[in-house]
C-alpha cells in the first residue's frame, strides 16, 4: 500500500515534468516516458509503451491524455492513472491560465496586432506541415481517399456537425472492413 502511494507520487512528478517540458504533446512524449518509466524506474518495457501508444491512438481522446492515464494505470492502478493524468494536465493549465489573463490586454498594442497578423500566416504554414505529416503516415487506399475527400467536403462546405461525420465514417469503416473480410481479404 505504501509502495503504491509512493509510485503514484513518482508518477505525478514524472508526468508533471512531461507536461511542463514537451511541446505539442502526443508522440513528443514518448522519449521522456521511455527514459523515466522504462529505464529509470523499470516499471514497463519498451514494447509495452509502444502498445500503449497504439491503443491511445485508437481510443477516443487526445493521445497525450490517453497515454498518461494508461501508463499510470499499468504502474499503480486507478490512483496511478489519476496522478499521471493530473500531472500531465497541470502545467498546461497553469501556464495557459496565466497567459490568457495577459493576452487580451497585450493584443491591444498596435505592434502586437501587426505581429499576430504575421503569426497567423506562419501558423498556416505550421498546420499545413502537420497535415502533410499526418497524411504521409496514413495508409493509402482508394477507400481511404474517398473518406478523406468526403469528410473534407462535408466539413468545409456544409453545416453538418463534425461529430456526425466522425460517427458516419467510423460506421462506414466498420462495414467496409466486414465486407472485405467476408470476401476473404485481410486488411
Amino acid at each position, binding site marked *: 500500500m505504501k509502495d503504491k502511494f509512493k509510485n503514484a507520487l513518482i508518477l505525478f512528478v514524472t508526468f508533471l515534468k512531461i507536461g*511542463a*517540458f*514537451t*511541446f*505539442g*504533446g*502526443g508522440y513528443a512524449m514518448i522519449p521522456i516516458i521511455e527514459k523515466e518509466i522504462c529505464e529509470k524506474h523499470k516499471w514497463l518495457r519498451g514494447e509495452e509503451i509502444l502498445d500503449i501508444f*497504439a491503443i*491511445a*491512438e*485508437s*481510443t*477516443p*481522446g*487526445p493521445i*497525450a*491524455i490517453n497515454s498518461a*492515464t*494508461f501508463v499510470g*494505470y499499468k504502474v499503480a492502478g*486507478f490512483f496511478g492513472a489519476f496522478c499521471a493524468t493530473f500531472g500531465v*494536465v497541470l*502545467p*498546461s*493549465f497553469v*501556464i*495557459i*491560465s496565466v*497567459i*490568457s489573463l495577459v*493576452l487580451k490586454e497585450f493584443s491591444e498594442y498596435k505592434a502586437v496586432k*501587426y505581429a*499576430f*497578423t*504575421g503569426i*497567423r*500566416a*506562419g*501558423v498556416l*504554414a*505550421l*498546420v*499545413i506541415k502537420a*497535415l502533410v505529416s*499526418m497524411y504521409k503516415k*496514413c*495508409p493509402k487506399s482508394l477507400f481511404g481517399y474517398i*473518406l478523406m475527400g468526403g*469528410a*473534407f467536403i462535408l*466539413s468545409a462546405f456544409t453545416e453538418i456537425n463534425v*461529430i456526425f461525420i*466522425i460517427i458516419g*465514417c467510423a*460506421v462506414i469503416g*466498420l462495414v*467496409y*472492413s*466486414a465486407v472485405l473480410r467476408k470476401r476473404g481479404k485481410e*486488411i
Partner: protein
Amino acid sequence: MSIFLEFLKLFLTFFRIGAFTFGGGYAMLPLIQDAVLQNKWLSEEAIVNFIAVSESTPGPFAINIATYVGMERGRALLDLPGGFLGAAVATLGVVLPSFIVILIVARVYKKFQESKTVKGCMNGLRPTVIGLIAAAVLNIGTTVFFPDGFSLSALNPYNIVVSLVIAVIGILLIFKKKIHPIILILISAALGIAAGFAGELIR
C-alpha cells in the same frame, strides 16, 4: 440562461470534444472550431492566434486549447473567478472521456487490440480525421487571407500579399530547413510587425 447552465454547457461541449477526438496533435482542431464558432465563444482569428501560443508553450494542444477557451468563456460570464472556473470545467471535460475509456480498455486491452470492430472503425477514422483537419486548415487559410469576409469592400490587397509572402516563407523554412515551430512563429511575428509599419508609411 442561468450562469450554472452556461458552465454546464462548457463542460458538456468539451466532454463531447474529448470523446470524439481520435489521434493527437491537431486532431481536435476541427471539433474545437465547430463548437467554439457555433457558440460564438471565440473568433476564428483568436483560435489561430492561440495555435501560435500553444506551439510556443509546453503541454498538449488539447489541454492548452481547452484551458484557454474555458478561461475566455468563464471570464465573459463571471470575470476572473469565472475564468478559472471555466478553465477548470473545460479542461476536466476534455480529460474525462479519455480517463474513463482508458480505465475500461486497460483491463481488456489484449482483446481491444485484436478486436475486429476497433480495427474496422479505425480504418474509417484514420482518413476521415485527415480530411477534417484539411477542412480546418482551409478555415485557417480563409481567416489569414480574408479576415473580414469575401465582400469586395472588405478585401485588403496589402494584407493578402503580406500574408501570402509570410506563409510561403514559412512553408519553405519548415519543409526545407525543418526549423522549429517557435522560430517560425518569431520570424512571422517580426515580418508581420515590419509589414504593418511599412503599410502605414505607404498609406
